């Protein structure tokens, strides 16, 4: 029995039957990390002391029959989510050494549910990127092909689950940063509806787009983790008090459901033939399971990337103003006036992509350009949202590829920012419209994982999970741990 290859649901049964202890489960994972992470490099830092303490607590709760749904489950956390006393750097030099003074809500709720945090995972600096190559520490490698990227920005969290280093992990998704690495690493990843999960304790990138979500080895695991962290939080005014019903009708199947295939997504520029073939096969599986596949259209798809690359950098340029070298982080102590201190601290602390986006966002918001860029992009955002509203009148959920390509070689897109941005062309619409979206593995192309994306109307995580679950059952495609 190799516990590093099992799902949360399987481990939950073993732990609750007392056939396995949280302590042993943890040591097997720490050993696995020790064996494979020098190749994968999913983790920026490990938290074994915290993990041992949490495993002991979980074992006591299991023994007392008071265990939460994640009791004893090894969890990895993206380096943008604050955990009290743990170094949290957003993959950036500007926060090197920063120890969060409090734990954010999503992580805190998983801790309350019994999770055991094994470490902090690598990501693109401030979650800006699609390959984890923008981490200021080192790139993470795809566990299925070590010379390739794991996707990003939550690449460390995706690869930790794919490599058997953690059973579940948390990422954040602003334009596709959970779903795209999930697809490229062959695991399940979900971005909830904007407002479903509290963002308190998340180092903000683009506040109207960011959401926290899980990476797991099954759709059921995804539902368990999401349910444990969802719901209203007084510390995040954008969190919703809607009922936490994400697992409603989970196993009801897709018979009689209408699944929309947007032609703009199906034939998106640059989609690889192998990816398209895997999606065709997945559509056949869903059809075979009783779903009706219908054509829908999202006419403003071509403008999504442009709108996103105004709105996200604009929000980031504002959010990242707080990194000024005064309250925390890298600080220039040589400057003789405050402006130079700011400018030098930020020059040394931020990497190339972050500086590029801060410049772009500042420009878009600057006097004289606001109407042409920011306001225009906000109006186009309205049209994109309306496209989805119209499409959902004709279908229950939308299905497409998650990423137009499989994992690409490390270094192959770093010189061309626009090519890198195009990685998110099928996912960022979900962020602009605030929709829940899940990526599930749907086979291989050229030996590398392909992801099927399911997008549902706002607050209908239950629909996205139900379709993904139905696909998982009907296809028999199981998440595998990479043989490292």
């Amino acid at each position, binding site marked *: 029995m190799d516990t590093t290859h099992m799902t949360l649901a399987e481990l939950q049964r073993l732990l609750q039957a007392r056939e396995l202890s949280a302590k042993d489960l943890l040591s097997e994972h720490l050993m696995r990390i020790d064996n494979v992470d020098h190749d994968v490099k999913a983790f920026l830092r490990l938290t074994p002391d915290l993990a041992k303490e949490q495993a002991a607590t979980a074992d006591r709760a299991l023994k007392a029959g008071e265990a939460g749904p994640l009791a004893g489950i090894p969890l990895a956390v993206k380096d943008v989510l604050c955990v009290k006393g743990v170094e949290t750097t957003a993959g950036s030099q500007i926060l090197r050494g920063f*120890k969060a*003074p409090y734990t954010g809500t999503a992580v805190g709720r998983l801790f309350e549910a019994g999770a055991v945090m094994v470490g902090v995972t690598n990501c693109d600096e401030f979650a800006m990127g699609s390959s984890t190559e923008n981490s200021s520490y080192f790139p993470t490698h795809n566990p299925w092909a070590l010379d390739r990227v794991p996707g990003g920005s939550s690449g460390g969290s995706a690869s930790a689950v794919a490599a058997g280093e953690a059973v579940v992990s948390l990422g954040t998704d602003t334009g596709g940063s959970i779903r795209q690495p999930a697809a490229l690493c062959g695991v399940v990843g979900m971005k909830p*509806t*904007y407002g479903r999960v509290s963002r308190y304790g998340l180092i903000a990138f683009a506040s*109207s787009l960011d959401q926290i979500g899980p990476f797991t080895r099954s759709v059921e695991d995804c539902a368990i983790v999401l349910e444990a962290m969802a719901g209203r939080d*007084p*510390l995040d*005014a*954008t*969190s*919703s*008090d809607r009922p936490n019903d994400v697992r409603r009708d989970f196993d009801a199947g897709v018979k009689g459901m209408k699944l929309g295939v947007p032609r703009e997504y199906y034939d998106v520029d640059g989609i690889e033939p192998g990816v398209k073939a895997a999606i065709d096969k997945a559509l056949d599986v869903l059809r075979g399971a009783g779903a009706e596949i219908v054509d829908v259209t999202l006419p*403003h798809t071509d*403008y999504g*990337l*442009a*709108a996103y*690359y*105004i709105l996200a950098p604009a929000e980031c340029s504002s959010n990242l*103003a707080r990194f*000024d070298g*005064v*309250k*925390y*982080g*890298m*600080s220039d*102590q040589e*400057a*003789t*006036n*405050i*402006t130079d*201190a700011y*400018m*030098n601290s*930020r*020059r*040394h602390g931020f990497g190339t992509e972050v500086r*590029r986006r*801060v*410049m*772009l966002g*500042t*420009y878009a918001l*600057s006097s004289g350009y606001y109407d042409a860029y920011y*306001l*225009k992009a*906000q*109006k*186009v*955002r*309205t*049209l994109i*949202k309306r496209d989805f509203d119209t499409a959902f009148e004709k279908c229950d959920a939308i299905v497409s590829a998650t990423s137009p390509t499989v994992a690409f070689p490390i270094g192959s897109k770093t010189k061309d*920012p*626009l090519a890198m941005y195009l990685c998110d062309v099928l996912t960022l619409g979900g962020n602009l*419209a*605030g929709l829940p979206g899940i990526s599930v593995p749907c086979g291989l192309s050229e030996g590398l994982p392909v992801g099927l994306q399911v997008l549902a109307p*706002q607050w209908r995580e239950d629909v996205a999970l139900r379709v993904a679950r139905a696909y998982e059952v009907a296809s028999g495609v199981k998440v595998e741990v990479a043989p490292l």
Partner: protein
Amino acid sequence: MRHVALLARLGLEPGDEEFYAEQLSGILAHIDRLQQVDTDDIPPTAQVVEIVNQLREDEPRPGLSQYEVLANAPVAYDGYFRVPSIQEEA
């Protein structure tokens, strides 16, 4: 470039001006396609869900101590964050 960098309080390295000017022009060339969309009667969207001005009760609750707040400070002095002079010399 220099004006935007100053607005962003972002120091530039030698060569950065040309580097960012070139890259940002490429990105802005893509972004210019937004001008093709007719948005005359379209309201802007700042956030997409129905939640509006959801406020919590204005009740005092414990916060971080001064010690905790200053724990990550590059330089703390006498309970304050220390910064260079914010006024020009006379």
